[in-house]
């Protein structure tokens, strides 16, 4: 079997990789224009393929591992992710065209990154998926260290490549465990893992692709890496790459491990998803770098997707196919919605970084008036981030909350209490994300400028503006017609859990139970519009229209002096000040925050100091002990240098004997 869609997309992989080589020998614009055209065409092909029913297709390439061919495949699941990747890639490539006259030296890696992600999605065997995944990590590493002259960027790059190596090792090990009877996905499906093998595969998938997606506790690389990369690259990493990792998780856990896995498989996903959601959303309230805030919110959103996947896995094991469909639908809808609105937000962040000269919130402010298009795009993205109706963020969160409500049918009292805690934690994460969105928009876009560069901020160039406009239209449409996106996800739902959303998702809205009332975005939007028109009419008829300006009253502080036309920036609430109540209440619990105050005695002239210290629990409880262990081990290994020749020889012989015994045991298994 070989569908035309797969053939076109497979040649798109080749084209993108070739574009990388071509860009290395010509100008950066070649790579970006090429990526733009290829991704645009790929998006159309993927859309047509999904609308046409997503018939599974397979393509055997005549090269690959020694003595073997490589298999590419396309079905409803990968088709949906291809569509997201191509849309996000088109926007990021378009935005990259606006390089302000300084083409990045790492431009050749850009099309390679896109091609590697597409290869991961089209993989039909273990080799292709590993090749794509690893190439994706390498290409994105090159892009992350684009501005490698900054120390923070180099540090982020080292952390990123280290975590990518761990993710790669885990993925290879998981696939090795699965491929006992051949590396093609068809062979793996025919022999799904059982017992301890299956449990180890689950753990490896959650650690490998899970860390690439940004799941706690291996999420620490994500905020620095996404903050360091250029705007369009972080847009692609956050919008698309984390979703590719989610795709690999879905492919391995739902598809390749088969439907016969036990119910508890959902629980680790729920726990890690909830931890990521709450921790990511909280850190989004603490970070003061616009891009780091967005990256932390990506951790949160990946957590939400993983919770949906966890509920779906458990529901599938419990034969609750309707619930599995709802949860999986919520996860996939959120993947698409988040993929697009986070791409939009990172493009805005890139535009702000260039236009206002900084991405630190303490140096921004008042940008909505100076960068109107970027500002409006960011407002829309912020509404999605906060999950406000009728934006794209609300529909999937509504479905997710409904599927958590349905999850009480999964098991006995113990599981029900777990679900109950999950529900409260999920609501906390969503509310924290809302708070973070208000803080981000409120500090960066609104108020008075906090620095001279923010006063003189300039709007993004035409390519970025077009990319933003396209994404904003798509995000708006997803918000109003979530049922249409779920229609595109129907083949994936059928393939993954043998379920559908018939009667629960249509053009008008989505509901939790077939033919029951649900969430009707069009109705909500219509009511809002009617209310707005009504208010306008009443004001026109009854109120004094127009307004006059004056200095902010500010409880009698009066107008600022002439030499400070925008007032003293310090009298305005800062990003740190905004989240101070939250840090004080939740900080000690979530990030072991401590505050120390050093107040000099009266008469002492040294300044008073207030120091806040907080640490991500993952670095505190996981990475710090590992680093300590490594130091300890290298201390032990150090002693080897002081052994006599006789001792060294006996160590070597013992090691050889142990190795032979190990191989003998493996042979017996």
């Amino acid at each position, binding site marked *: 079997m070989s569908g035309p869609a797969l053939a076109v997309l497979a040649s798109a992989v080749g084209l993108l990789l070739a574009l990388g080589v071509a860009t290395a020998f010509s100008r950066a614009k070649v790579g970006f224009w090429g990526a733009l055209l290829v991704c645009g065409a790929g998006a159309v092909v993927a859309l047509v393929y999904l609308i046409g029913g997503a018939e599974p297709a397979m393509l055997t390439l005549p090269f690959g591992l020694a003595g073997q061919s490589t298999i590419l495949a396309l079905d409803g699941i990968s088709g949906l992710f291809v569509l997201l990747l191509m849309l996000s890639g088109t926007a990021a490539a378009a935005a990259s065209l606006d390089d302000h006259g300084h083409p990045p030296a790492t431009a050749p890696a850009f099309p390679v990154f896109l091609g590697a992600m597409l290869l991961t999605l089209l993989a039909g065997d273990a080799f292709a998926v590993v090749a794509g995944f690893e190439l994706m990590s390498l290409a994105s590493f090159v892009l992350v260290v684009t501005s490698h002259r900054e120390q923070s960027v180099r540090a982020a790059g080292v952390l990123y490549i280290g975590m990518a190596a761990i993710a790669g090792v885990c993925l290879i090990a998981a696939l090795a465990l699965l491929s006992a009877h051949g590396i093609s996905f068809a062979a793996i499906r025919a022999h799904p893992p059982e017992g301890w093998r299956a449990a180890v595969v689950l753990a490896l998938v959650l650690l490998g692709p899970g860390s690439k997606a940004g799941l706690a506790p291996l999420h620490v690389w994500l905020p620095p890496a996404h903050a360091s990369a250029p705007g369009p690259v972080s847009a692609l990493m956050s919008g698309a790459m984390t979703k590719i990792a989610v795709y690999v998780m879905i492919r391995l856990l739902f598809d390749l491990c088969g439907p016969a896995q036990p119910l508890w498989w959902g629980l680790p996903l729920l726990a890690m998803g909830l931890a990521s959601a709450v921790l990511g959303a909280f850190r989004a309230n603490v970070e003061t770098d616009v891009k780091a805030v967005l990256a932390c919110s990506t951790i949160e959103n990946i957590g939400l997707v993983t919770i949906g996947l966890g509920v779906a896995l458990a529901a599938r094991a419990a034969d609750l196919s309707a619930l599995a469909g709802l949860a999986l639908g919520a996860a996939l809808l959120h993947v698409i919605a988040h993929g697009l609105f986070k791409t939009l937000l990172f493009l805005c962040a890139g535009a702000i970084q260039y236009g206002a000269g900084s991405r630190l919130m303490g140096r921004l402010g*008042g940008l*909505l008036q100076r960068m109107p298009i970027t500002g409006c795009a960011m*407002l829309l993205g912020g*509404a999605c981030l*906060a*999950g*406000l*109706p009728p934006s794209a963020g609300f529909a999937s969160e*509504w479905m997710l909350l409904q599927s958590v*409500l349905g999850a009480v049918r999964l098991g006995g009292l113990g599981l*029900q*209490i777990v679900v*109950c805690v999950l529900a*409260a934690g999920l609501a*906390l994460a*969503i*509310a924290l994300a*809302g*708070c973070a969105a*208000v803080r981000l928009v*409120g*500090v960066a876009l*609104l*108020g*008075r400028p906090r620095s001279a560069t923010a006063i003189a901020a300039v709007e993004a160039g035409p390519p970025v503006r077009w990319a933003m406009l396209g994404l904003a239209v798509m995000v708006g449409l997803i918000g109003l017609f979530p049922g249409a996106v779920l229609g595109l996800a129907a083949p994936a739902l059928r393939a993954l859990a043998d379920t559908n959303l018939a009667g629960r998702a249509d053009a008008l809205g989505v509901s939790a139970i077939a033919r*029951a*009332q*649900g*969430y009707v975005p069009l*109705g*909500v939007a219509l*009511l*809002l519009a009617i*209310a*707005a028109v*009504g208010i*306008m009419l009443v*004001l026109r008829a009854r*109120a*004094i229209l*127009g*307004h*006059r*300006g*004056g*200095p*902010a*009253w*500010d409880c009698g*502080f009066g107008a600022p002096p002439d030499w400070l036309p925008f*007032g003293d920036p310090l009298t*305005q*609430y800062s990003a740190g*000040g*905004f*989240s101070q*109540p*939250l840090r*004080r*209440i939740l900080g000690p619990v979530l990030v072991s925050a401590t505050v120390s105050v050093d107040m000099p005695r009266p008469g002492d002239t040294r300044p008073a100091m207030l120091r806040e210290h907080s640490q991500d629990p993952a670095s505190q409880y996981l990475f710090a002990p590992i680093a300590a262990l490594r130091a300890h081990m290298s201390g032990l290994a150090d002693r080897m240098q002081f052994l006599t020749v006789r001792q060294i020889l006996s160590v070597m012989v013992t090691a050889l004997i142990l190795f032979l015994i190990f191989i003998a045991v493996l042979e017996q298994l």
Partner: protein
Amino acid sequence: MSSVAGLLALLLHLALVLAGAPLLLGLLRLIKARMVGRAGPPVLQPWRDLLRLMRKQPVVADGTSWLFRSAPAVALAATCTAAALVPSFALGMTTAPVGDLLVIGGLLALGRAVLALAAMDSGTAFGGIGASREMTFSVFAEPVFFLIVFTLALITGSTNLDTASSVVNAGVGLRISMALGLVATTTLAIAECGRVPVDNPASHLELTMVHEAMVLEYSGRHLAMIEFTAALKLLLWMSVIAVLFCPFGIAPHDGPGATLAPWLWLLGIAAWAAKMVLLAVALAVFETIQAKMRVFRVPELLGMALLLGLLAVIFLFVSQGFAQGAP
């Protein structure tokens, strides 16, 4: 209920709610004044204030963007939409299929976020402090809200307000979960509406303000819209409590009310008005005997509500377990 009757019910509901919201606030202020021995303003005073404010030209702080000027209208539109979704005297209004509890929560969150953004846009320290505190409270209020929705959905099988209310009206028996849910909802309503002990709407001390600090820079018709939004929000939360926890007297969708039944509607309106007055009296008494809390005590209050919500759900699981275990 036929579609014409549904539309009529919706229009009548909107008229009642929009006219009644400032009256409820007036009544509340009057009772509070009487309780502390003052004569108090007449019940119509909030309406007079609103009309007066509409005739004043607003002064807009320099350096603010279009968002500052349009936020009051957006917040009011979101709250009006939410108010159109919460039934008052009759079930089965035209908007009933849209009236999901989570959507109502989302619309109120929209109104809150827009006002917080506008407060940040004014570029003053008080705007920032108000926005920061309001959003912090919302972080702790949202889990409570979702657990209440959880409890109701488990009891009534739906998160749709109309359906849930009709199931409760048909009788779900005396349930501990409903009682716990009522306490949690009341606490949540007090926090969401910014009433004592969470916030004092009559405060004159800026440092203790939460909601009022956000809207300090507003005047004229903008302030009128914000005041109206606050009044509408109070009425909306009281209607939610009434329609979920004591829906007695509300005109049902089917049965005798399937056709236009004016006497059922009259009964519904009378019952709703009586419930609102009773709740206003209760709130006035509560506010008079309570002092405002410190800002950092509020999460403890909402934490208590969260625990009650959790208990409500767990009681429900346990009782369902018993019901399934019984022969």
